[in-house]
């Protein structure tokens, strides 16, 4: 337990000591949101959305997921650095269970991602969204589960790779499609049939759907998963990723 907490604390201290990382994680998605949202907003109307809803508002939930997706997963790159710089070797020979190491590392990285997501969530009012206290609470819960699951995915990949370049290459293979096909950029209902299947199988879709339900109930399409279904899917994803992490980290390999 104390091992988990100490690894968690370490990641957070490291993050806040690294100013460029704090700024770099938050500012680009905001710029991205404004540019894409404003640009597409003039030419695209969200199918099935009520009158008066701007694309910027529709795109808000997607941007929130984008922030958590990128910062959570890229925070796990620290595992590769820990291995290369040697810190990890001393953790692995300490009397600490692999589960504690996984939880400490995953919680550390997902807290970093979540902190940035929550900072962006505070801007919801500026985007013209007024979800109320309940809406914010649901949104925070969705983001928490999503960031744990996504960090777990990053952990599994980072654990087996030994270069951060490789990590970037592999993660781009996952990240962009996972985000594109999540309903973040266009509503699932408007997509062709085969894409709808992919969207339904993509855990990130449930983060987007959950956030839309929490923040912007007006855009939720008919047939979209309920809040409970979203939370259940995200919790299952997080649990599955934790198990995968422990399995991956339990291998005593030659490195």
């Amino acid at each position: 337990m104390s091992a988990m907490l100490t690894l968690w604390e370490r990641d957070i201290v490291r993050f806040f000591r690294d100013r460029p990382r704090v700024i770099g994680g938050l500012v680009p998605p905001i710029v991205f949101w404004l540019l894409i949202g404003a640009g597409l907003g003039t030419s695209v109307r969200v199918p099935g959305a009520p009158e008066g809803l701007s694309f910027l508002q529709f795109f808000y939930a997607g941007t929130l997921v984008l922030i958590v997706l990128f910062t959570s997963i890229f925070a796990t790159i620290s595992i590769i650095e820990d291995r290369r710089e040697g810190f990890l070797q001393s953790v692995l020979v300490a009397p600490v269970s692999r589960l504690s190491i996984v939880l400490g590392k995953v919680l550390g990285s997902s807290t970093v991602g979540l902190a940035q997501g929550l900072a962006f969530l505070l801007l919801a009012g500026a985007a013209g969204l007024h979800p109320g206290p309940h809406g914010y609470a649901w949104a925070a819960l969705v983001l928490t589960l999503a960031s744990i699951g996504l960090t777990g995915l990053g952990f599994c990949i980072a654990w087996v790779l030994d270069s951060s370049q490789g990590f970037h290459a592999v993660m781009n293979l996952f990240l962009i499609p996972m985000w594109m096909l999540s309903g973040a950029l266009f509503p699932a209902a408007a997509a062709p049939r085969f894409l709808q299947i992919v969207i339904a199988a993509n855990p990130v879709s449930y983060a987007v759907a959950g956030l839309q339900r929490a923040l912007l109930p007006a855009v939720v399409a008919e047939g979209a998963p309920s809040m409970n279904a979203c939370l259940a899917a995200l919790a299952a994803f997080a649990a599955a990723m934790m198990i995968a992490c422990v399995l991956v980290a339990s291998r005593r390999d030659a490195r």
Partner: protein
Amino acid sequence: MGPNGGGKSTLFRILATSLSPTSGSATILGRDLIADPASARPFLGVVFQSPSLDNKLTVRENLVHGGRLYGLSGTNLTVRINEMLSRYRLAARAGDLCGTLSGGLRRRVELAKSLLHKPKVVLLDEPSTGLDPAARQDLWEHLLALKAEGATILTTTHLMDEGDRCDRVAILDQGKIVAMGTPAALKAEIGGDVITIEADDASGLRDEITKRFGVTPRAFGGQLRLERASGHAFIPQLVEAFPGRLRAVSLSRPSLEDAFLHHAGRRFADAEAAA
């Protein structure tokens, strides 16, 4: 002790429980490192050859996290950290980021970190790598002080003088222990003195020495080496037997390097070059 590439670090990592051997068994304090590595870990203090500190954290923060991983917390941890900081003369640098420290200081932090939980067995992999002579001397004084307090210290080295400071030395070559014993016993096995001969025609001379004295020196490049009891008496005979053909003859007490050569059949430097 052994040349680079001899298997020292692999053995170290098996004993530190970070690597599973392909075969064989290993126990420390009666605990099976292969079947149940977790049972041995609380008793081990491990100092890796490559640094294991977090350079973005301060010296004190590194010690705090290191101690917590070994189950220390609260006042107990603070007291131990302060003890270690003063013992290893780090107190003035406790608030500095590890990335800003010199190599010698960082090694002292590593040592302090690995000793917080008072391990019974301290494992070190080439601890003097990258240290200047003064820092190396300092490190060994700390190691010998720990030994005096009752800890068992197991270190790898490829430096002869470090081997000489140990109670027991195992000589590793190409993954095998070729000899093991106290440094004195390993040297005594050579049975006398080491005579080194330099000559222009080393291999021709070797055959003639064999014919004349019934002993075959080992040849390395332009050098011949002989191990012989009462070498001081043998050298005059040798010089008289081959007038003008020897460029230099020297007599020395056996060193661990000679013990390596005796058992591994090659010179330490050649083994390093081959690795």
